């Protein structure tokens, strides 16, 4: 009953006749990276199209994917999965489970069904059958998994899930960035690992409903093009840490119900509303902006504007906050540094004043004609006499 009421409420927030935008693993991983952001939680939970919303607010997002990358990515995934996933299963066997029997005649069950709920049920059924019929390999191509996120269901679609002969399950993530001489861009691998961790969590929910519960492997397989070719190569990635972090952050997410209850009556995020009304609605729920949001959230430019207008020091980076103690706005910090406000016994204030004094002294010394004798006058050492380092 409560679920229906919430769904009704979230549909109202989205606006009449606006279809819900599905939460994907990428969005979930981003959400888990900033669990304090209620704004993102409610907008994602309600399935609001944040890109459209940002456009309507007058701060359009800069996200997009080049069709070149898309074509290349799709071609690579098709190549990896060709021939009933023979190459993919070979890589899983080689990298994760070399002791098992080689994957020949692997089963590739049909997973199509109507609607995400139907596909989720179909996937769960296929997983159960494959696990029961142990002894062979099974490849699930684009299965659908459901994960409860802050009180509403998110449907996730991993690239592939493999059932091993021993009945354990592995998440496979296919990416089109290259693995160069065995190593790939750490930032991209990190993003892929966080995404895969979300799938592992969702798979574990499916596994928990089976008896005996099959093991979901915490080492996922990351498949990438090798060097400069489009031949696939793979590496096992341990996602235990990402899984633990994501699981904790998802549990911490403020319940969407609570956020929805705190919203004013009639609040709505439909992109068709006038900008002032939308701004008011968006402002009615708190955000926690940090520069990292720019790479992960469509609404980031809007939140940045607001954060800057409020003079929040976090808009310069989360680390900045750490050394400023209780001072949270630019004006407060500068006033304290100038000695106009603040308690000099506060260590943060004292450090600020010393920093400001030293900075002013140094700039003065540099601007003045000659620095104090002997202080900064360092003659150039003889050139050509430093053979120690090549």
């Amino acid at each position, binding site marked *: 009953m409560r679920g229906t009421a919430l769904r009704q409420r979230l549909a109202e927030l989205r606006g009449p006749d606006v279809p819900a935008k599905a939460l994907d693993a990428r969005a979930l991983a981003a959400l888990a990276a900033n669990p304090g952001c209620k704004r993102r939680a409610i907008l994602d939970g309600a399935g609001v199209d944040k890109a459209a919303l940002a456009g309507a607010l007058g701060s359009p997002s800069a996200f997009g994917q080049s069709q070149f*990358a898309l074509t290349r990515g799709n071609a690579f995934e098709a190549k990896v999965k060709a021939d009933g996933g023979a190459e993919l299963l070979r890589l899983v066997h080689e990298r994760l489970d070399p002791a098992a029997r080689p994957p020949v005649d692997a089963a590739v069950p049909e997973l199509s069904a109507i609607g995400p709920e139907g596909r989720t049920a179909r996937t769960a059924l296929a997983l159960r059958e494959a696990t029961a019929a142990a002894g062979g390999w099974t490849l699930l191509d684009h299965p659908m998994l459901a994960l409860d996120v802050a009180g509403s269901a998110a449907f996730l679609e991993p690239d592939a899930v493999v059932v091993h002969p021993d009945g354990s399950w592995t998440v496979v993530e296919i990416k089109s960035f290259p693995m*160069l001489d065995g190593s790939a861009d750490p930032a991209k691998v990190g993003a892929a690992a966080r995404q895969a961790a979300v799938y592992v969590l969702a798979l574990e929910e499916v596994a928990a409903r089976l008896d005996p519960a099959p093991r979901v492997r915490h080492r996922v397989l990351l498949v990438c093009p090798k060097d400069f070719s489009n031949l696939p190569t793979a590496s096992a990635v341990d996602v235990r840490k990402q899984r633990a972090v994501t699981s904790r952050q998802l549990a911490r997410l403020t319940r969407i119900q609570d956020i929805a209850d705190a919203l004013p009556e009639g609040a709505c995020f439909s992109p068709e509303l006038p900008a002032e009304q939308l701004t008011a609605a968006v402002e009615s729920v708190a955000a926690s902006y940090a520069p990292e949001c720019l790479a992960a959230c469509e609404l980031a430019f809007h939140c940045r504007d607001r954060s800057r207008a409020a*003079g929040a020091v976090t808009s*310069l980076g989360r680390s900045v906050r750490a050394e400023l103690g209780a001072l949270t706005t630019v004006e407060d910090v*500068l006033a304290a540094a100038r000695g106009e406000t603040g308690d000099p016994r506060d260590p943060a204030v004292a450090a600020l004043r010393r920093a400001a004094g*030293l900075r002013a002294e140094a700039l003065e010394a540099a601007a003045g004609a000659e620095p104090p004798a002997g202080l900064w006058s*360092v003659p150039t*050492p003889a050139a050509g006499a430093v053979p120690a380092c090549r």
Partner: protein
Amino acid sequence: MSLIATLARLEAVATGRAQPTATVRHRRLSQRPLVFVPLTTAGEAGAPLGALVGTDRDAPRLLVVPQPRDRDLRFAFLAELADVVLPYIDSYADAVEAAERNETDPETGKRVKVEVELCADAPQLIVPSRAGVDYVRLLGRSMRFRRTAEQDPQTPYPAPPRVPLLGRWLTHFGERSRVPGSALLQAVTELLGRHWATGQSSLEDQHLGALLAWIDPPAGETGAQAALRAELARDADGQLLCPPAGPATDPAFDNKLLAPAIERYDRARTALAAAQDGLQADDLLGALTAAEGEIRALVSSRMLPTWDAVWRGLDLLRSLPEGAHVEERWTRDRWSFTGHRDRVVAGEPPQPRRDDAVTAANKLATREREQARLEAQEALDDPLVMAARRLAGEAFAGEVVDVVMAYGEGKRPSPRPLVTVRTEDLPHLAERAKVYRSLGGKPQAAEFVRWAAEGDAGRADGGHGAGGAGLLVLRIVDKMGRGKEPEAGSVPEKGDRLCFTLFEHEQRGGAKLPDPEETPWTHGGPPGEQTPEAPDSVTQEDLL
């Protein structure tokens, strides 16, 4: 980020303009740098789309790959790039001066001085951003194992001559850029970010346009407004007014302008290939040339703003005087350049994919040592950098209030004067801690003796009152000559303003590593006979 740098950022927010975080320029800028603005194709590794390259800001050389997935066109691009970059590098290889180097004599095992050549100057590659530096490495990696038809007549898809050589040089530039303080390959965003603090986060500073907007905003605009325009403003076509500095392009550009243009080019090429007779072929060739011209214009329009921005950034950096120790670090770059020149001339194989244990350990040790050296030298060259060290308790400045002559307790009494310094800084001094000051460019060491008491405010415990000054006693221990009386000017005098550091000014090399043949088993044992690296496998279906 030190509190002083944070403060500079906050001041930038308040004033709407970037604030200095350095009073001198801490990196060498060549008189004739080679600026390289590359663009790459989304989704493909090492598939260049185009580049602007050259030493003359008014005449960049435009290189474009009209169909980035065509292997031949890509090789043509790389060959053209080699025609620009290699002559530039060669122009520095010939002018040499004599220098000495310590080497181990293979027969006696002693360290002896050997006369060697050192290039009088070195080339310098400037790219727009950090991603550009990575791209130089990537291009280097993609080329250096390629085989030319001359090296290996059997090789499928041979590379044009000189392309593998360009790969080796770009790899060297990329590898050298990982050494702190080196200047052979530099990104303008990093250079600007080192010398100015903007009112935005360091993440946003990676956008060259936004960074320049903060440092040098147009008249009547604040840095924040100008930066926002640089980040987001689009024209009627939905294209960014300030295109990203690359190598990645804006997806909107790819989808709306580039993809249709490439499609037209592909169609024109197919039509030409299917031409029935010469007359028809002439027309179709014209169409193909037009399609190619269109792509060239498009790609160049995305790169020209970045090209201008890079030069503007260099102008801004040139307005700062060069730091005193920059020349010394540049000499190290010259050694690095000379060393690689010699390896190429000696016919050594390209840099391996993975370093052996000893090489890797050497590289890490070098980077650590250079990092420490850079930090010390920047502080010595620049009062603003020293201010951050003083705030952190790693240095202190003050006035000499008393000098008492004293002597050491050895058989031959040597001068060990006691110097009392009044400072408002709060150095973290342990008992008998060594401190250093610069004396004629050389470090003079002193030993911390004790905090002194001043009048009634007894602070023998070293306690500092809030905002008050402290007195500390130091014992000078070297650089005073051999005699009983210290040499003139080698002992501070009353009234001198001095700055002492707790860190050493010069870095000593670490323990020597074994030769590669002596690699211990813990590190994989001796690497054995080096097998030449195999070229990357190429297949017909690679969209190369």
